[in-house]
């Protein structure tokens, strides 16, 4: 296989989309947190707990959607926990984010062990997975068909949500108020907007999104929960969100870059390049991307001067 065949294959793009899904959910969750003026630092930890809640919920309800619902519920609960500590009890968001991460890391292993007797994964639960769908007509178009069709329902949901959130934030009164609250609390309060109400709405939506991201990892990407399976996707989502300036389609585009980096890592492994070195790629890409982005932004400010 040559280097070019790595990129110029439908498989590469198919995998990119598959791999961008959890990051897209994470980035959208971060976006909603940030829009409501809440630090998105808890996302990684929330997603990890949700990744466990999915298969467990699926196992007990016997349905994949039961699992997804469980993951979203856990996402909401943890988002509110984070909100309670940072907004009401005045906890430093970074410390609260670290705590949430530690809590999820421990609690998920604890629960996995409690439920399956095994600390590594929930494989023995044989939990249901979210189905992949093949889109008729489009499926048979050459090149595009194999890239676009055949993904998990949740992948399509993530893309749909990118669109719906655009509508929500830019075309509805509620979304408008959330943006106002998040950007300038005093202005929002001066026209009689109840600030906490809209913060809670953001927590609710962001919790759901993080829940979907977690559920995708353990119910679609693979069919079980395994420890630490989010592997920084929540943090990468945070980076993608700021690089996309908080605008959904731009966020999705930056997420796609990370998806490609991930996909590239997988493809390069087939070329017999060292696996571990290649696993660094998405993280290196993130550091470089966020540094360039920040550098440009700080320079623009200086030029204006």
């Amino acid at each position: 296989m040559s280097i070019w065949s790595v990129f110029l294959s439908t498989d590469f793009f198919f995998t990119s989309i598959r791999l961008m899904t959890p990051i897209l959910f994470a980035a959208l969750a971060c976006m909603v947190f940030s829009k409501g003026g809440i630090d998105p630092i808890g996302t990684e930890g929330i997603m990890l707990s949700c990744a466990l809640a999915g298969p467990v919920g699926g196992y007990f309800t016997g349905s994949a959607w039961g699992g997804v619902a469980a993951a979203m519920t856990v996402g909401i609960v943890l988002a509110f926990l984070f909100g309670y500590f940072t907004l009401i009890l005045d906890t430093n968001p970074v410390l609260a984010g670290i705590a949430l991460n530690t809590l999820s890391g421990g609690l998920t292993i604890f629960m996995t062990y409690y439920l399956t007797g095994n600390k590594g994964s929930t494989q023995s639960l044989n939990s249901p997975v979210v189905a992949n769908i093949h889109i008729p007509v489009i499926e048979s178009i050459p090149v595009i068909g194999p890239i676009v069709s055949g993904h998990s329902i949740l992948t399509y949901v993530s893309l749909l949500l990118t669109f719906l959130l655009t509508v929500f934030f830019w075309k509805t009164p509620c979304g408008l108020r959330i943006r106002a609250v998040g950007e300038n609390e005093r202005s929002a309060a001066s026209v009689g907007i109840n600030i906490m109400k809209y913060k809670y709405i953001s927590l609710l939506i962001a919790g759901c999104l993080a829940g979907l991201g977690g559920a995708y990892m353990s119910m679609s990407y693979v069919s079980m929960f395994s420890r630490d399976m989010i592997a920084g996707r929540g943090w990468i989502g945070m980076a993608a969100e700021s690089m996309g300036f908080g605008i959904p389609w731009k966020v999705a585009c930056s997420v796609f870059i990370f998806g490609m980096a991930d996909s590239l890592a997988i493809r390069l492994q087939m070329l017999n390049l060292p696996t571990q070195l290649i696993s660094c790629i998405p993280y290196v890409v993130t550091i470089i991307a966020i540094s360039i982005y920040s550098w440009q932004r700080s320079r623009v400010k200086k030029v204006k001067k």
Partner: protein
Amino acid sequence: MKTKKPLSGYIEMLRMMMAIFISLIIVFAIILLISNEPLSALKDFVIGPFTSLRRFGNVIEGMTPLIFTGLAVIVLFKPGLYNLAMEGAFFMGMVAACAAALTFGLPGKLNLVVAMLAAAAAGAVVCFIPGVLKVKTTANELVTSLMMNYICLYFGLWVINSFFYDPTQNSSYSYKFPEGTVLDKIIEGTRINQGTILALIAVFIIWLVLRKTPFGFKAGLVGENNNMADYCGIKSGNVILMTQIVGGLLAGFGGAAQLFGMFERFQYSALPGYGWDGVLIAIVARRKAQYVPFAALFLSYLRIGADIMSRNSDIPFEIVNIIQAVMVLLISATAILSGVKKKLIVKETRELEALKEGGK
């Protein structure tokens, strides 16, 4: 004039006691609810670490990495940055220590010293990167440092697997370190080793640096009010970079101390998590180097207790993470007890007024 502790110190102490108490209550409740033999599990957890010299030795050994990462976090966070690369720095410290020990093969203890210095240097590089990116490009140090951690993990594993892999062993185990490249045991019947002494020396040095040098003072001032630091003629960018380097040195050196104190070969396949523990240590020690050993002792005791409990019962070790998380959340929840603080401030102001009256 008599020196009196600042008021906010008491409130922090009180909040911390409360946090420890609440988190332990939560954990005891979990144990009581879940375990089939809750009482014996609890007994193992609470008393277990004291039941034998070896076990108590485990507590002391366990302090070493925690002291190093706790100190690292204190220094890294000092100028107001949230650089979390200490986790990766600790891991790269271990990798670099292993690589240096197996590559150079210097005679006797010299090899150990060189390997440990290499570890410190590797740690410094890891923590320096997010710091320099923050200062030069304003990139969020939180995101870059977290990415660094993953890069350290995979890069480190690649180094070990490609160059130092021992084919006679399990996956990702390195060759044995040369004879003498080890931190010697100092108490018979335990694994307590010179690493603990090095850790205590580090505590002293960091206490000295933070409390007794102009550099420590400047780092603190940058963290508290960088406008004021700049206006006082302090170059805050340089101060930030120096602290990140020192923090990295500590974490990397701690990695080496852990490796040479506890193992004969490199045998990690995941990040050990000591960096994250360092955050809790720093918070419990109220960001003061001199309290770090006590915080480390406390956490190490909890961990050994949980370890003993998990071996003898159905409660997994990870319950410790729950305690840690709850403690971090509650100790840093500054709104708790802020009412009490306000009352105390009013009282103090009144006393001061009285002092003023008396003076006239």
